[in-house]
């Protein structure tokens, strides 16, 4: 018999951990599910449990504090397991969460859901982006910070956003020569408008200054208005071509330069992971400053489905501090919903968080406004460049399907299989949507993301066999 909970929290990053802690403190019967062996998520990037560090940074201390607090909570923790599907209960209210993990139950039942699924990096195709040696910013940081492995000897960092500086600085400290950071956005003209918002972000400014000083030591130039245009190599990256880009991030012909590198780190901002939210039918809206399609939420961060809440970057990119605050809000809201906390107490808790939340949201809007990847980046891919990495479909094939009348990502998916592969469209979906918008002169908000069906990630076949006891 599978267990029934009042609340299932999916994802144990900053938002999910805070949500579970708040809910447990109020006495809500809670289960937390995460696909890593331990809580922490992508922001805190906890070291593997078998590793020990001599000292911790501020973020690591914060992450350790939260994971330690969560560990003492009476919640059931299901780690190393993938929540691959959510189904409405056939009778009664609530949800069945289907799980794949070697030591995990196959399913749990819950009355309420908190989706704290975080984000993944915006994939941008350029010729050679499938070559070994091309990795995302997040992958570079995980390699260096968590696993203590250098991806190569000489790297180019390219894309948009502050994560590039963090990746570059960490690579330099790891002994990798970083030949340059090519930031596709031209920051200065717009950046000045945001001076006042930045004043409230002292810790972030300090962090940024630290990265820049490491880059100076490494003699790594920060080139704004530049982008990678191609990566070359036989079985691995051997060189990269960079070029100046215009205000829309379209490369300017004649400005190309070739650099010898064995690693290309590319990061074009984050996309909220709404896979599970889409699967169960949460209403979405388009907000380019929050990373694209995000759930419609009320003041308690409840989605269009009663008892289903979303918090953190998975509901709109806002950063770790914002995620923590949102986590507390949804944890408290869930407690109120099942009568474990009075509305008055909840309001009091939320009121205290209000000023900080407002500040974090201002900062989130700044990042979204400054660094959202520009539409011209889709011109980096040539006709023969792979867009859908899993089904190996190139831009020409996608454009042909669009010319055939494809006005939705789901339609292009049916015609070409783009997005039907192993990654379920996380790599190509956004890019296909962008091409549809461009070809049909639509706003990005007019091109819906594709339909999500279980399984959200590939699962073991035996998990689907009924009557298998574990």
């Amino acid at each position, binding site marked *: 018999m599978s267990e029934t909970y009042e609340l299932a929290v999916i994802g144990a990053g900053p938002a999910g951990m805070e949500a579970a802690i708040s809910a447990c403190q109020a006495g809500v019967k809670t289960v937390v599910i995460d*696909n890593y062996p331990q809580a922490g998520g992508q922001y805190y990037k906890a070291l593997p449990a078998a590793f020990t560090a001599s000292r911790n940074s501020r973020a690591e201390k914060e992450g350790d504090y939260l994971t330690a607090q969560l560990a003492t909570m009476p919640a059931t923790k299901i780690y190393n397991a993938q929540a691959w599907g959510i189904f409405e209960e056939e009778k009664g209210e609530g949800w069945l969460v289907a799980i794949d993990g070697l030591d995990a139950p196959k399913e749990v039942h819950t009355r309420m859901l908190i989706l704290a699924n975080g984000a993944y990096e915006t994939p941008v195709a350029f010729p050679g982006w499938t070559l070994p040696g*091309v990795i995302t910013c997040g992958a570079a940081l995980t390699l260096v910070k968590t696993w203590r*492995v250098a991806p190569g000897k000489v790297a180019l960092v390219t894309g948009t956003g502050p994560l590039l500086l963090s990746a570059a600085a960490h690579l330099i400290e790891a002994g990798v020569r970083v030949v340059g950071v090519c930031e596709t956005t031209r920051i200065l003209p717009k950046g000045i408008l945001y001076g006042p918002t930045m004043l409230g972000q002292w810790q972030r400014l300090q962090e940024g200054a*630290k990265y820049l000083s490491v880059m100076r030591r490494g003699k790594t130039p920060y080139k704004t208005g530049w982008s990678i245009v191609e990566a070359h190599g036989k079985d691995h990256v051997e060189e990269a071509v960079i070029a100046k880009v215009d205000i829309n991030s379209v490369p300017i012909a004649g400005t190309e330069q070739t650099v010898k590198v064995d690693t290309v780190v590319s990061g074009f901002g984050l996309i909220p992971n709404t896979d599970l939210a889409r699967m169960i039918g949460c209403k979405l809206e388009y907000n380019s400053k929050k990373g694209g399609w995000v759930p419609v939420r009320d003041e308690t961060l409840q989605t269009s489905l009663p008892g289903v809440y979303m918090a953190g970057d998975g509901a709109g990119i806002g950063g770790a501090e914002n995620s923590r605050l949102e986590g507390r809000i949804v944890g408290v809201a869930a407690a109120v919903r099942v009568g474990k906390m009075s509305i008055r107490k909840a309001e009091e808790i939320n009121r205290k968080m209000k000023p900080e939340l407002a500040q974090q949201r201002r900062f989130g809007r700044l990042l979204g406004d400054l660094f959202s990847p520009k539409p011209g980046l889709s011109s980096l891919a040539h006709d023969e460049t792979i867009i859908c990495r*899993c089904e190996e479909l190139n831009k020409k094939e996608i454009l042909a399907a669009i010319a055939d009348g494809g006005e939705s990502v789901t339609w292009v998916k049916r015609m070409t299989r783009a997005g039907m592969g192993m990654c379920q469209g996380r790599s190509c979906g956004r890019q296909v949507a962008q091409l549809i918008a461009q070809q049909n002169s639509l706003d990005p908000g007019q091109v819906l993301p594709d339909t999500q069906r279980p399984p959200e990630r590939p699962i073991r076949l035996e998990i689907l066999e009924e009557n298998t006891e574990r």
Partner: protein
Amino acid sequence: MRINQTGSLLPKVQRGNPVKINVDGKPMDAYEGETVAAALLAAGVYTFHLSLKNKEPRSMYCGMGSCMDCLVTVDGRQSLRACMTQVAEGMQVETCKDPDL
């Protein structure tokens, strides 16, 4: 290559216990707590699998279990994500093995 440098961003780290894994029939050193992807990249093995249609080399891309491009065969179980699979003593890893479909 494993990093032993330290700095303001990278404090000194003590890895887990050494373990021996086996990659395509050859022994490889790894440390408890590492993922298969970390061990392979540290040893300079970059091609994890070949794409199904064009047979092009693929490796770790996203490092967080999202892109499904770092697939390897582990102890006979095919299409596992190297970035999400932890090494264990005696583990048998196979790269570039065509999955039986």
